[in-house]
């Protein structure tokens, strides 16, 4: 049969985000896949070398559109580590609550993309609607819907507004009430099973070899979560499960995402019950004249897609000397995706890509 080259994206119905894959196909079978990132490359890491430590906050959150909050967190943590700033206990708890809320929002967005791709339009609309309810909460808390710039070196920018906790609980309850609907229409649906089972399958050994993190590694049965391994914020104070699945295919990955959302909501309730009183931020020096002693640091958090790291270098000046983000989509989208697409069929490209939860702006940075 003749070999053909097929351009999948960036302008393609099955493609979410600015990303493209060049497929070499023979009939319906993919012989070779080449991922082409770069459509969104804005050189953030270089731009950050021209801006002061505080001016960089509006930049870092724009690296990941879906989930800017973990970006703020990882940058704040690195700055705090280099400058030696302490964070008050209440701020730790608020950060954890805020990050879990972001995780639910991001997973709902991922669910929207995945359900939409499989043709479950109703479920996709529900997920988008429920994400919007969470964005409403963010708007009330921070003033912004998508980009929040809420976490700050030394704590968070402001305390919860009056009555916010109750509204958050009632919103989460109203979303939680729909879980049986989601299960009946999507997760326990035979169509989803048939469409996702054994698609994009990866073994644990392979996933480890290729540097998989997050759902990709947890769907192969390995309980690896930065929140447990190296607890930050208030995660060591709260008891939670790390959901895993065994099979390593698209089906398992989406189920891990579902279980994580539920676990996150439970975690928010537990954190709210034990929310300590006190200050929410420690004063930092004048941001216009703030210099940070020379040194380097690598910090990591568990974003909704896996290990998100930041290697930050200071030369003692008022601006970072070098910034390098380690984003989970980088290895998932450039190494594992290419590997899994080999011998897959064209119809499964979107399925595999979205189940790996690849977010293009994160790769390009």
């Amino acid at each position, binding site marked *: 049969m003749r070999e053909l080259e097929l351009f999948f994206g960036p302008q393609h119905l099955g493609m979410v985000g600015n990303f493209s894959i060049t497929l070499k196909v023979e009939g319906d079978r993919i012989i070779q896949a080449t991922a082409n990132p770069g459509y969104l490359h804005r050189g953030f890491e270089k731009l950050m070398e*021209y801006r002061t430590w505080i001016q960089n906050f509006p930049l870092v959150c724009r690296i990941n559109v879906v989930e800017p909050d973990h970006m703020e967190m990882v940058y704040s943590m690195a700055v705090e580590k280099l400058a030696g700033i302490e964070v008050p206990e209440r701020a730790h708890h608020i950060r954890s609550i805020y990050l879990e809320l972001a995780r639910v929002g991001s997973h709902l967005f991922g669910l929207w993309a995945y359900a939409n791709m499989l043709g479950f339009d109703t479920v996709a609309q529900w997920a988008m609607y429920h994400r919007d309810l969470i964005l409403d909460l963010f708007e009330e808390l921070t003033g912004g819907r998508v980009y929040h710039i809420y976490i700050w070196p030394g704590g968070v920018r402001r305390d919860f507004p009056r009555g916010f906790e109750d509204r958050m609980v009632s919103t989460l309850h109203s979303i939680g009430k729909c879980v049986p609907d989601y299960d009946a229409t999507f997760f326990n649906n035979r169509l989803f099973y048939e469409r996702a089972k054994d698609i994009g399958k990866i073994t644990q050994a392979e996933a*480890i*070899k290729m540097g998989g993190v997050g759902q990709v590694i947890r769907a192969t049965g390995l309980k690896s979560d930065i929140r447990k*391994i190296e607890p930050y914020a208030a995660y060591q104070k709260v008891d939670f499960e790390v959901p895993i699945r065994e099979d390593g295919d698209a089906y398992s990955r989406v189920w891990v995402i579902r279980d994580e959302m539920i676990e996150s909501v439970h975690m928010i309730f537990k954190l709210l019950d034990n929310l300590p009183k006190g200050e929410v931020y420690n004063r930092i020096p004048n941001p216009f004249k703030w210099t940070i002693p020379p040194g380097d640091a690598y910090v990591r958090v568990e974003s909704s897609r896996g290990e998100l790291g930041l290697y930050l270098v200071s030369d003692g000046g008022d601006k970072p000397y070098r910034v390098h983000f380690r984003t989970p989509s980088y*290895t998932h989208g450039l190494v594992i995706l290419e590997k899994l697409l080999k011998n897959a069929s064209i119809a499964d490209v979107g399925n595999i890509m979205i189940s790996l939860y690849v977010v293009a702006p994160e790769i390009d940075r």
Partner: protein
Amino acid sequence: MDNSIKRKLKAIFRGIEISTEKNGRLVISVPMDSTGDVLKSLKDQGYIHLALISCVDWIDKEKLELVYILSSYSENDHIILKTNIPRKKLDFRTVIDIFENAEPYEREIHELFGIDFKGHPRQIPLFLERDYEIPPFRKDFDTRKYVKEYFDEIPFVKEDK
């Protein structure tokens, strides 16, 4: 954990410097030639996850610093391994044979810093669309000047009335 690794590495490799941070994290500086062997030895000791390869341009010291960050999937620690490459001769070896996911990282560093990784299967552009005289993430590349030269020249569109 760190003491046994420290002793082992010191015994095998020459010219290796190991410092321990306050929280027990290891920072290892190795000479260029033994980087691959040290990485292999660390991988055998359980640091199976290559989290990141980064590069820092220390222009005053005339060198580029490659930074490898290794961790395991279960332990609360990671190792930062550093090696220096002279700015005059930017050749280095690839580590894809040790860590498969090094491929895009090295490709990116090749594009943004100009280090040539010997043995890398495809050192083709990853992000950029133009050719640059100086790789753009080096410190001597002036972003503002570049933007002024390339984009300020585009004339404004005049509306016809």
